[in-house]
């Protein structure tokens, strides 16, 4: 059997002796796109930290192409959680993208011709040519996010880890961003873990869903996992899944049937009206 892009075997991990991920097993092949869903604190970001080599598993194993995760792994691209750059940060989109390949290099900071060509290509790839020479602080959230994606893609990773890349973007931008990422993965046969609260923009591209709740996990194709029975079992409380003309909404509340417009701000029982 050929090496899997990502292979988790009974992986447990967490902080300060408290595991948020318990006994998680998962195999991701090249070119596969997995949506990672679940309420806050369910271990989605923790899983990415392990795969980035920033956090050691407490037990079990995680392998990327058969190797233990480590920082500075050139096969792994990473799109961190979206947050706006400071308005007066002295950097343009172009340099931001370039940091993706030369940001870890010491020495005189001139960029080589070959690097500049690579940067241009990455900028082109995400359709950011029009604003790559503007200071990043001047750009909209969606534009900044495209540049972050170019920064992650510039090294041609064959594993791509995305931590809520759609946060705080409007529906149109969400669709554009997911389109760009999907296009790259089909072109490069890249395995993608896509942590998100918004399943609908990526639903057309998702191969499987990894749903994490309180240390438990459900894995399978969207139509298998995103069902009332499966999620009720996973959450341990009544959960409603609505298919609304192909748009999926999950409502996990105390009553479970609080309706599409209900609002619960209960940390234990989260409501996720995905739109």
């Amino acid at each position, binding site marked *: 059997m050929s090496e899997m892009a990502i292979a988790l075997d009974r992986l447990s991990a967490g902080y300060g002796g408290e595991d948020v991920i318990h006994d998680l097993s998962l195999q991701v092949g090249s070119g596969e796109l997995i949506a990672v869903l679940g309420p806050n604190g369910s271990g989605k970001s923790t899983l990415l930290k392990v795969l980035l080599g920033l956090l050691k598993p407490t037990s079990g194993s995680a392998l990327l192409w058969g190797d233990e995760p480590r*920082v*500075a792994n050139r096969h792994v691209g990473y799109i961190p959680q979206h947050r706006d750059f400071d308005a007066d940060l002295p950097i343009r989109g172009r340099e931001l993208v370039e940091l993706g390949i*030369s940001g*870890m290099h010491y020495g005189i*900071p001139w960029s080589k011709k070959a690097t500049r060509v690579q940067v241009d290509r990455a900028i082109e790839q995400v359709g950011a040519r029009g604003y790559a020479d*503007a200071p990043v602080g001047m750009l909209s959230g969606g534009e900044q996010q495209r540049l972050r994606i170019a920064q992650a893609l510039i090294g041609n990773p064959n594993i791509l880890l995305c931590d809520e890349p759609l946060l705080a973007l409007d529906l149109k931008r969400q669709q554009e961003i997911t389109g760009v990422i999907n296009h790259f993965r089909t072109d490069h046969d890249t395995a993608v873990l896509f942590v998100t609260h918004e399943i609908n923009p990526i639903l057309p591209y998702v191969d499987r869903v990894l749903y994490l709740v309180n240390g438990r996990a459900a894995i399978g194709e969207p139509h298998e996992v995103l069902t009332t029975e499966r999620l009720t079992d996973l959450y341990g409380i009544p959960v409603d899944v609505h298919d609304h003309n192909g748009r999926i909404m999950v409502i996990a509340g105390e009553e479970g049937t609080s309706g599409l417009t209900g609002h619960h701000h209960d940390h234990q029982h989260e409501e996720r009206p995905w739109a």
Partner: protein
Amino acid sequence: MGLGNYLALPFAQHALLAGTLIAIICGVIGPFVIARQMAFAVHGAAELSFTGAAAGLVVAGNPIAGALMGSVVVAGLIGVLGEKPRERDSAIGVVLAAGLGLGVLLLSHYQGFASAATNILFGNIFGVSRGDLFLLVGLALVVLLAMMTIYRPLLFSSVDPELAKARGVPTRLLGILFLVLLAVTVTEAAQIVGTLLVLSLAITPAAAAQRIAAAPLAVTGVSIGIALVATDGGILLSLNGTTVPPTVFVTGLSFGLYVLARLIGPTLARRRRERLRVLRAAEV
């Protein structure tokens, strides 16, 4: 005696040489100070280099060596006490207040010339001995080389620390190294403008450059240029038949250039925004 006569004298030449190198390292450090939101750390390191200088003066009659040691120790302390800007600022406030009090105590035991204390606070590049000048020049070269070497990883960890860490950049170590380089730079700058006015060389040129340039290396370049004009210009003006110390001219020039940058900055930003609008429209 005119400017030409002064320029033939070793003390003036040395001051200009040291001033040039110090201006360059201030220009290089400044944009990172702003990007990492460390203006208060600069002020803290400067105030505490005053304590170090006072200690050096009392113990060995050598304020510069004391100031260097003081500011480097403080940089280490700040680095260890607080990594996040918010924790860091309160840590600096605490260390600064305690250290400054100690400095006052030390100075009260000093029996020498009163001007020594004024020199520490307000700077006097002409009063620096030959041996100290060599020390200043040597250290400035070390800072410059170090900054050139870590430029890209430092930029990466200033722009996106989380991502830089995942990419294998030792962000915490770089942060502490930068603090030490900053402390040395601050002590050097204090020889020209004094510990109280260090910000005029370590922040003002970079703040002005940011209004003018956009790319990191361009910002650094403009920041160096402004620091050079302010420092060398200030030294030359003060040599030109006045008794006014260079500090006054250096801070004045630096502030004047900042005001200028603030005046033309909005026009440049508007032009950039306009170009951005056109290019965005062309993309669609």
